[in-house]
């Protein structure tokens, strides 16, 4: 078993991981930048090591200082959390070479699923539907035009190594292709040091639905149902829910089975997610996230499984120990992300409490939100019988939530939750702009 874990992250996810460590009797070691001396994860962990100045590149991305801190503080394992080094194959490799356990899939898996072209190849072999597109890298604007005319406009061109909307271009007509291809290759090269480009048919306003998986690398794979993450602002998820209102039982089953089949083929070890686009009742593979995700509590709520605990157990070499049939996925879960719009000192923080509500946050009265990092301030998760009551309970929770000292997107979340379109359950990824009439 693992006795001591270094958490190579900050904010709410570091706090979240420390809690599961406590629950398992595992010692937790936090790392922090000079800007995070008073951060909650530093206060809560059993030990904490300063690893650099405020800039992430010099601290939370400083793999050498992080690994040295883990070795020097007697840890057996490193949990990378989300973001930062969580999908960095080189880091996973370095951690392993330092004689530590990397809590996540192995470097080869991270590398494979991180390469969009490679991932598509594996997905195709597993017989999983994906949007029509280029079979591999596209070399020239000419080739791009030829493939686009085969699959039909609009198309989207993407960086093979990309993510987060960078190096992505929607092309509506043939005459736009040359310029779009040139810009996208350039962006891909400058952001990801890899100019490789591929193309897919562009689905207008699909739903973004993903399947949460646990896989022990020894053949046992289960899913914890799906999460619908269609409510996004500039490709940033705002609200996540499970089950998705876009799927019926048969569609859900097909999608989850496809995801499980892919993870079996990958010999995946750990927690991971398969993201799909859902369009007119059909699902199309988008990508694999080889890590735990921000919205994982939604799946924890409906399944009763602690995903962080499972990550740790699997990394320690344990068998999953249960089958899909033994899982009891029930009710409806909804998560709202509360993002800070300004950094600042928190003069008062009152979280919502009571039945059916969970709060994951690094905020506390007298704490602060740093200008250096991600604006995610708190996640509010509710678990109820059905979608209608879940939305009511989330409204109750958000009304109880009070954060003084910074401004947040709480009012925006209330607007979405009370909107007719969100309550209808019928919308696409354009829901945010439809509500706010951009």
């Amino acid at each position: 078993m693992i006795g001591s874990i270094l958490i190579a992250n900050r904010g709410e996810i570091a706090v979240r991981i420390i809690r599961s460590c406590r629950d398992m009797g595992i010692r937790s070691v936090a790392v922090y930048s000079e800007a995070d001396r008073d951060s909650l994860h530093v206060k809560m962990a059993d030990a904490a090591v300063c690893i650099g100045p405020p800039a992430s590149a010099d601290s939370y991305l400083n793999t050498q200082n992080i690994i040295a801190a883990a070795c020097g503080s007697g840890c057996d394992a490193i949990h990378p959390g989300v973001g930062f080094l969580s999908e960095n194959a080189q880091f996973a490799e370095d951690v392993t070479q330092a004689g530590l356990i990397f809590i996540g899939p192995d470097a080869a898996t991270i590398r494979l699923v991180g390469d969009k072209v490679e991932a598509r190849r594996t997905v195709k072999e597993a017989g999983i539907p994906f949007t029509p597109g280029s079979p591999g890298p596209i070399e020239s604007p000419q080739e791009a035009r030829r493939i686009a005319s085969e699959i039909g406009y609009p198309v989207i061109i993407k960086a093979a190594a990309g993510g987060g909307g960078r190096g992505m271009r929607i092309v509506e007509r043939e005459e736009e292709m040359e310029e779009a291809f040139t810009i996208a290759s350039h962006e891909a090269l400058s952001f990801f040091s890899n100019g490789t480009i591929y193309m897919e048919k562009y689905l207008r306003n699909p739903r973004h639905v993903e399947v949460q998986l646990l896989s022990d690398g020894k053949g046992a794979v289960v899913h914890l149902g799906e999460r619908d993450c269609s409510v996004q602002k500039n490709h940033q998820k705002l609200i996540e829910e499970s089950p998705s209102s876009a799927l019926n039982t048969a569609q859900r089953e097909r999608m989850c089975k496809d995801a499980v089949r892919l993870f079996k083929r990958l010999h995946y070890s750990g927690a991971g997610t398969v993201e799909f686009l859902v369009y007119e009742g059909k699902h199309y593979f988008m990508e694999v996230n080889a890590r735990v995700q921000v919205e994982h509590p939604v799946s924890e709520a409906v399944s009763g499984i602690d995903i962080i605990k499972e990550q740790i157990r699997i990394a320690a070499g344990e068998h999953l120990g249960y089958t899909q049939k033994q899982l009891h996925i029930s009710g409806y879960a909804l998560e709202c992300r509360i993002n800070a719009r300004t950094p600042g000192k928190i003069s008062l923080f009152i979280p919502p409490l009571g039945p059916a509500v969970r709060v994951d946050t690094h905020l506390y009265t007298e704490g602060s939100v740093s200008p250096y990092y991600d604006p995610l301030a708190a996640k509010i998760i509710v678990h109820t019988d059905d979608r209608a009551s879940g939305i009511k309970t989330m409204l109750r929770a958000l009304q109880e939530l009070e954060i003084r000292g910074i401004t947040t997107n709480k009012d925006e979340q209330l607007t979405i939750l009370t909107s007719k379109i969100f309550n209808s359950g019928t919308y696409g990824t354009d829901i945010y702009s439809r509500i706010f009439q951009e």
Partner: protein
Amino acid sequence: MTIEYIRSLIEVFESSSLTELHLNDEGQEITLKREKEIQVLSAPVHSAPPAPQPIPAAGDAAPFTQEADTIIIPSPIVGTFYRTPAPDSPPFVEVGDTVKAGDALCIIEAMKMMNRLEAEFPCEIVAIHANHGDLVEYDGALIEVRRI
């Protein structure tokens, strides 16, 4: 001028960004001063320059100068602090020693690499703030010296 008055004055002063306040109220005089940043020798609050990447020859790490007459040399990286070049060797330096620029002060081990930290200028060793074998943090206090 009562204690309460002075307490209030200090509170107002502390909640401001002032560093000095002088008051002469019909013959009653008071002066308040404070440092912009409190100087804590054993736990420096000044930022050292960001640790260069990859880890440089340890001597590259610029120790920062304090306004007091001693200087704390901070750790440029996270690692294990060693006072000796090898298990059985004597320490590089002891308190009271004087060293010249380029002399070795200690070793910080990280990623199985031994990083030698060297003096940048001639100095006297005033104190050693880490124990042999300790994990030292980024910017953690290592050795306190006085420039000579």
